[in-house]
């Protein structure tokens, strides 16, 4: 309790809130990621009390992950990698004039997801961290396969076209240095290609830039404001939805948190998997991707819950759960703390302070996030031609900022054109992103796993966790055909649909 009250200190609160406001800007600008925000903040915190520095880091990471959903919802430009999945239904809802409902729902779900994530961190982190250590290449391989199978789930329309898109993503991911042998693939002695095609500029190009190209086709309505409807939110409506779908929020948050707790997977994968799982378990699965609220709830609850998860291995074992916590572990050394297994015993008070900051940040997020939405919607009121020019400008600046490389700017433009072309022929874009993120995860874990076993596939099946994950993949694969048969049998009975 002392720890809880101690964070309401002016020397903690001021930098904390400022960092959260910064997160809204960073997250909202495509290409500037939560990780980057944390890396920039850390040098400022060296002369502060440890808890003030940590509060800044925690605050900025939560707000920027949420703020990434704002341009994702209104402009189809994911602000951070973790917002990729939020594009799917959020932007569809916006097209139907429900953008403000989507983003408010998003905000509330982000906060609830964040709280659930932190609660799991507080109460069962030692158990979960021990479980996460059991994961090695064999298990990560199946996790990747499970994720990739979601590409069938998230693609609208033709499954074949979904597969084409996914395979393209996987192929692009093979460019660069191969981790299993250290051999540069498809790099042609070019240092930039050696570094691989990073997926953030691809995502900005595929979704954001292609959308701008699309609107350029018919040069009408350019002087109208980009987001036509007035941004006014009835929190009552949001509340109703939250209560109605609370089970889904819980499910997505727990799933997101578990994935976040694995050192080999973070908030971006968590959001996609939660989306896929929501569609699998939903009664309205045919509405996903067409602007349904469940498609907004699942990824946005999961990505903020995953952040709490990434702190689990970081606090329990001192091993990073993602890029943000790896920076945090470095910063802790600067504060004179020794991150690692001993921190739980040695620094109990600080740990309690971290937990308190985590929980309180979610309430601040509600408030600051709401102001953030208001601020951004002011921008979206500008005429279309101004906003679209702004998207291009910020996309270019943001993609340059990732690695300070002009090459990545080219990547954005190339994939903008590609995305435009793909949508022309009805090839869905999300599977390509998934292929790009998960391709390396699957390949690396399969091949390194095989190095470990001298080429034997047995451990991929015989280890308990990997066997369970394999079975889940099998069940998911056969679920649809089986469901179809059952549905046909049931056809006599009337199928009621739930309308939102």
């Amino acid at each position, binding site marked *: 309790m002392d720890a809880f009250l101690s964070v309401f200190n002016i020397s903690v609160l001021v930098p904390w809130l400022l960092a959260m406001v910064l997160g809204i800007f960073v997250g909202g600008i495509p290409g500037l990621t939560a990780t980057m925000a944390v890396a920039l903040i850390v040098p400022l915190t060296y002369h502060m009390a440890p808890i003030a520095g940590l509060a800044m880091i925690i605050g900025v990471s939560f707000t920027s992950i949420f703020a990434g959903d704002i341009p994702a919802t209104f402009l189809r430009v994911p602000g951070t990698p973790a917002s990729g999945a939020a594009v799917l239904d959020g932007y569809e809802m916006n097209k139907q004039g429900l953008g403000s409902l989507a983003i408010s729902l998003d905000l509330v779900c982000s906060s609830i997801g964040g709280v659930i994530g932190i609660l799991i961190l507080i109460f069962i982190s030692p158990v979960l961290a021990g479980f996460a250590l059991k994961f090695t290449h064999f298990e990560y391989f199946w996790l990747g396969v499970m994720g990739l199978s979601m590409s069938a789930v998230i693609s609208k329309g033709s499954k074949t076209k979904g597969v084409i898109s996914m395979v393209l993503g996987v192929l692009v991911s093979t460019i660069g240095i191969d981790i299993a042998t250290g051999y540069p693939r498809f790099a042609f002695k070019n240092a930039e290609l*050696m570094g691989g095609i990073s997926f953030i500029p691809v995502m900005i190009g595929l979704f954001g830039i292609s959308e701008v190209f699309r609107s350029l086709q018919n040069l009408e309505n350019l002087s109208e404001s980009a987001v036509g409807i007035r941004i006014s939110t009835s929190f009552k409506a949001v509340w109703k939805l939250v209560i109605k779908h609370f089970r889904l929020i819980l499910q997505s948050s727990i799933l997101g948190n578990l994935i976040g707790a694995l*050192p080999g997977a973070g908030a971006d994968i968590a959001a996609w998997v939660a989306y896929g799982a929501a569609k699998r378990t939903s009664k309205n699965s045919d509405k996903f991707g067409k602007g349904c609220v469940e498609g907004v709830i699942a990824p946005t609850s999961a990505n903020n819950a995953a952040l709490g998860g990434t702190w689990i291995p970081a606090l329990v*074992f001192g091993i990073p759960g993602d890029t943000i916590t790896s920076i945090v572990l470095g910063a802790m050394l600067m504060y004179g703390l020794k991150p690692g297994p001993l921190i739980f015993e040695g620094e109990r008070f600080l740990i309690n302070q971290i937990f308190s900051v985590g929980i309180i940040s979610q309430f601040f997020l509600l408030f600051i996030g709401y102001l953030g939405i208001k601020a951004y919607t002011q921008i979206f009121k500008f005429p279309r031609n101004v906003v679209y020019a702004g998207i291009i400008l910020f996309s270019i600046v943001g993609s340059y900022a990732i*690695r300070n490389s002009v090459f990545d700017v080219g990547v954005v433009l190339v994939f903008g054109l590609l995305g435009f072309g793909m949508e022309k022929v009805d090839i869905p874009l999300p599977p390509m992103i998934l292929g790009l993120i998960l391709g390396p995860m699957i390949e690396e874990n399969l091949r390194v796993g095989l190095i470990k076993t*001298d080429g034997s596939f047995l451990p991929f099946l015989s280890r308990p966790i990997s066997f369970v994950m394999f079975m889940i993949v099998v069940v998911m694969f056969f679920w649809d055909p089986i469901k179809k048969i059952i549905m046909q049998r049931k056809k006599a009975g009337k199928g009621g649909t739930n309308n939102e």
Partner: protein
Amino acid sequence: MKRIILLICLLMLVFGGLFAEGQKEVTFPNKPVTIVCPWSAGGGTDRTARFIADLLSAELGQPVQVVNKTGGAGAVGHNAAATAAPDGYTLGNLTFEVNTLKYLGYSDITPADFKSVLQFNQDAAAVTVSADSPYNTVKELLEAVKKEPAGTFVFSGSGIGTVWDLARIAMLDKYGIDPNRVKYVPSQGAAPAITELLGNHVDVITCSYPEVAPQVEAGKLKTLAVMADERNPQFADIPTLKEQGIDWSYGTWRGFAVPDDTPDDVLKVLQDAMKKVVESKEYIDFMNSNGFGIEIRIGAEFDSYMMEQFAGLADIFELAGYGN
């Protein structure tokens, strides 16, 4: 009226330009200096670079900014630093990997493409096993590697052809073991390798001691030896490989360099400023609290250190069978 203001503005522009032009000849530096860091923001190299940038800025009287140009196992950043304008305004934050790029076929850049400012850090490789491992010295461990069938022991530490991998290969070779007798699990850096060791998925890792220190202090892992010439006073209870009868020391380092064509007087300004930085108390405190080892080699000394290491790597890459 407007015309007069315009005229004044124009005159200011012209003379301002001339003034700036005149200054350039007199003093270096007269505009911000950039440090190119080949590794990502928030990592060890980036944090040291940013800390030094602050101190360097005070010495030079000009802003010093750190720019991360990452990717290609360091190839992108080292390339950018080597091919920058040789005017002293772009410094490369070199790391050990500059020696390996050519061998691995990632780039044609070698240490010969740079003129050294100074080296400011060195961290020796350490051999670490799980706390419940039956081996207490590197000798015991390597004897077991010799005796058991090939492929029994699984090593990890970092990616293929990285400093920790190369240190391992040479250590095995020095003990008369074919490096291929052990399996090597490549990972993306030391942190995932530590995770693998904690989960008992690998047997031995090679990486710097500060990276495993928290786990060792918590009794989860134990470090058998560091590959240094002498014990490190910061962790004096850890023996060196040499004490255990294996004549081998290796480690990573960080330093600053400029493109090879940079004029000597400019280099000297940078060197003098940097010398003051690395002798400062703030710098020493920073390195100590982060667990980074301090090793200063200035100018030519650093150049010859790099070139010697670069030449020595030919044998190790041959042993490993990596690259071309």
